[in-house]
């Protein structure tokens, strides 16, 4: 079965702290992987994506993620968070040949305190 698991449902950090959000997936074939962010009251926006090649991908706003095939993981990182990073973060996979359909994790709600 295809699924995405996000380890933390709620994370609270102080500004300047480092962030790592875990994401593991289950799928038997080749996948594309994504992180989306949803700021309060807004629609989902693409943070970064992995299709192939360098397993360390960089996205917008200083975020990066590392694809580790052997661990079926795609963890999101940021060295120093800001208050404006307060949002909900979703990991998602898209099976190759699947019309770009997305399977989402449950999301991680991040609160950054000044």
């Amino acid at each position, binding site marked *: 079965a295809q699924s995405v698991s996000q380890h933390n449902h709620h994370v609270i950090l102080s500004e300047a702290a480092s962030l790592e959000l875990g994401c593991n997936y289950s799928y038997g074939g080749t996948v594309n992987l994504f992180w989306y962010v949803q700021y309060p009251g807004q*629609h989902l926006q*693409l943070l970064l994506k992995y299709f192939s090649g360098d397993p360390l991908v960089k996205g917008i706003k200083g975020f990066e993620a590392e694809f580790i095939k052997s661990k079926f993981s795609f963890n999101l990182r940021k060295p120093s968070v800001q208050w404006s990073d307060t949002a909900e973060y979703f990991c998602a996979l898209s099976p190759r*040949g699947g019309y*770009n*359909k*997305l399977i989402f994790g449950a*999301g991680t709600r991040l609160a950054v305190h000044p």
Partner: protein
Amino acid sequence: NAGVTQTPKFRVLKTGQSMTLLCAQDMNHEYMYWYRQDPGMGLRLIHYSVGEGTTAKGEVPDGYNVSRLKKQNFLLGLESAAPSQTSVYFCASSPQGENQPQHFGDGTRLSIL
């Protein structure tokens, strides 16, 4: 620079009523999708379309119908609304071909009483 536009933004229905949610995209995308977002469950795919005149079921299609009569529009219908359909509904679109991210609308918050 509209992107994906959803109408309406909010709606309250009574059980048994019907309604249609409209999604319009101006990016000439081939693929369109409807998701529902529920607390603690992320987004789940309801139906999707890979081109004008085509539709297909997603993960949670029961109780919903869709139509794609024009390439730019994707309609989601609830024939007889149930409280379990209270949710936030997101429409998205993507270009044809592999490795294309989806672009999302602002969502429709629907409450069924």
